[in-house]
């Protein structure tokens, strides 16, 4: 894997229009880069041109509550550590995962029909809707992982289930998914999948290109773009800077109705009992209570009050 870093273009720091996430937050690029390099050196790789007959991309998509909805319509059940949605609240594909699918479709735009795209989701009956959407956008087939044992998965069980599905598909050269799900924002499932499958992972992609025998990925950094070349197979998480996603057209939507959706259970995926046990348990969920304290800055003159205010702000670490 080769890496070049440069301020090719400063990424937008604007919040994602759909979910409000800031693209550039929480990126520890140096540590991540070192990890990527370490992982990549340990892998046997191959390149796009060497794949025959087709490149197979698996896109992991999660169904989430519509992030465009106002937070006020949701209720937090602190005792049950749950977010309660109002009846009929729309569920949609996580917008970052939509962009992962868009990245896959753009790769196919570059490479043509030799790129096969499989959409995979884990969730209840309703989650099939995100697969149908993916098929309408151009995915070739889809996998729905559904099992009572996976009804409330944590990151650990999700990663194992999704990794097992990718493995069962067989011959997957590239796994794409959103940089995080737009509901919980943990952003760890994708890396868990990479770990389980022993794949190099490249995160926060804003552009992915198959060129010169490798996959070239532009990564979003706080102050620029990092370009990474990675051999396949690999996993890439996609950020919202990828840009606008396409809309399904009627012809493809009708065609999608004839595309297969496989239903796989935990047994189909040969998941071991230990892989179905959540490793992390949510023990608290609450909306922070906002408290306001008013402090009167004393001083005989405006200048004294101003100086006292400056000292107070400095002491508080605000200036």
């Amino acid at each position, binding site marked *: 894997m080769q890496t070049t870093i440069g301020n090719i273009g400063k990424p937008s720091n604007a919040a994602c229009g759909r979910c409000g996430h800031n693209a550039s937050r929480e990126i520890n690029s140096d540590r991540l880069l070192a990890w990527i390099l370490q992982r990549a050196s340990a892998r046997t790789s191959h390149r796009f041109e060497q794949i025959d007959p087709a490149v197979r991309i698996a896109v992991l998509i999660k169904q989430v509550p519509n992030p465009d*909805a*106002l937070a*006020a*319509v949701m209720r937090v059940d602190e005792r049950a550590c749950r977010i309660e949605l109002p009846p009929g609240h729309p569920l949609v594909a996580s917008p970052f995962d939509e962009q992962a699918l868009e990245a896959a479709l753009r790769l196919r735009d570059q490479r043509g029909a030799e790129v096969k795209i499989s959409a995979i989701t884990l969730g209840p009956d309703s989650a099939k*809707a995100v697969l*149908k*959407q993916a098929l*309408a956008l151009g995915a070739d087939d889809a996998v729905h992982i559904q099992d009572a044992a996976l009804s409330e998965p944590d990151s650990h069980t999700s990663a194992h289930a999704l990794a097992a599905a990718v493995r069962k598909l067989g011959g997957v050269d590239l796994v794409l998914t959103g940089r995080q799900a737009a509901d919980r924002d943990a952003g760890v499932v994708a890396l868990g999948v990479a770990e389980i499958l022993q794949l190099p992972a490249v995160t926060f992609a804003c552009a992915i290109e198959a060129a010169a025998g490798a996959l070239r990925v532009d990564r979003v950094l706080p102050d620029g773009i990092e370009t990474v070349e990675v051999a396949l197979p690999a996993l890439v998480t996609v950020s919202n800077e990828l840009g606008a996603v396409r*809309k*399904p*057209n*009627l*012809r*493809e*939507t*009708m065609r*999608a*109705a004839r595309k297969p959706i496989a239903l796989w259970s935990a047994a189909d995926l040969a998941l071991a009992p230990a892989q179905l046990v959540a490793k992390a348990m949510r023990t608290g969920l609450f909306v922070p209570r906002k408290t306001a304290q008013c402090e009167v800055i004393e001083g005989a003159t405006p200048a004294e009050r101003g100086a006292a205010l400056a000292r107070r702000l400095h002491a508080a670490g605000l200036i």
Partner: protein
Amino acid sequence: MPKREIEGDWVMGWPDRKRATLAAGKDAEGRVISGRTPVLDQEGLITPTDNYYIVTQLDLPEPVHPDDWSLSIGGEVERTLTLTLEDLRKLPGRSVRAVTECAGNDEGFFDYERRGAPKPSRRYVPDLDRRASMKAKRATPTHDELAGEMGNTCAMSGGEFTGVPLAAVLERAGLKPDGQWIWLKGFDTGRPDPAVQYRSMGRADVKIDDPGMIHYDKALPLAKALDPDTLLAWAQNGEWMLHVHGAPVRCIVPGWSGNWWVKWLSHIEVTREMPPCYHQTKYFVYGAAPEDPVKPMLTAMGVRCIITFPVDEDGPLERGSHAIRGLAWSGLGGIARVEVSVDGGATWHDAHIEEPRERWLWVRWSHLWHAEQPGSYRIMARATDVAGRVQPQTPWNYQRKHFDGIVPSDIVVV
């Protein structure tokens, strides 16, 4: 030229065309409080209920259970009445199909026609969420915001309303000879938002009368109230009236702009003189300027005709035949003629008016255009109603109400 793709979606589990949806503004709790109809994407004559436009002057009230609702009728009547919904439904009912149109619909086209302002588009409705947020804060739009506004549009829909004629209710109460005005009062309350009037005028340097907290009310002249098509309606498009559209009972006043269609009706009072309803005397009025001492109240709409295809955004078009389509309606009921011009008004051709041609509902019209030569075309359409009125009828007024001008489509043929 590549063929335009039809957008797809999953509807009831089937692959289908993507439905056009209401452009909605929501309050802090995610409830829809305003909406605009995707009129260019509608087929037929009846606007689906969930695409029906929504304009409210005051705050939306909390819903009232239909069994807890009643309507009182008093004032200049022989018998004061209190009627439940079931009482109303025992009276001889009636269904009326009619266009509902906001008085300020297409206000921005006034400035386009009169002042050379940029042409508004029915493809781009205002940011209603932002307006809802401003309303909650009673924020005043800045000069720049007002200058950048393209005006209210797509506040027009066609529906079927089922209820009982207002006249039947008044007959049951017994009108006294001196009763001339039918004062309709809703149970919604609120303090009128001055920003609404600023946007309507396109300026914010005018003092707006603040009546404080009021109920929404309007007073119908007796003759219009007794028109058999003026209804107290509990159903719309074959289903119970939605709360957001005025349930349990909304007044339907065909031909008159939407502000007359009082929602969440709770009281009717018959009066000798026109009562000082705030919106009837201060906002829904004509007048040349805010200072104009004569400000007649709005009543019947003018005569209107819009082109739904092609609009500017539909161009460029390929050479060949294209069906120019649109809708036409009149505040006095009935469209007699629609004419189309493809040369900027130099010559006019009669359009085909499609059946059915109902009195209060809009009609669909079409004209087959053979565009054989590449070039720029200005397509125009104008309607004549059964009263002989040709658009435009309504002169410019300072609140830009009841626009009924001719809006061209500028289309390039390649």
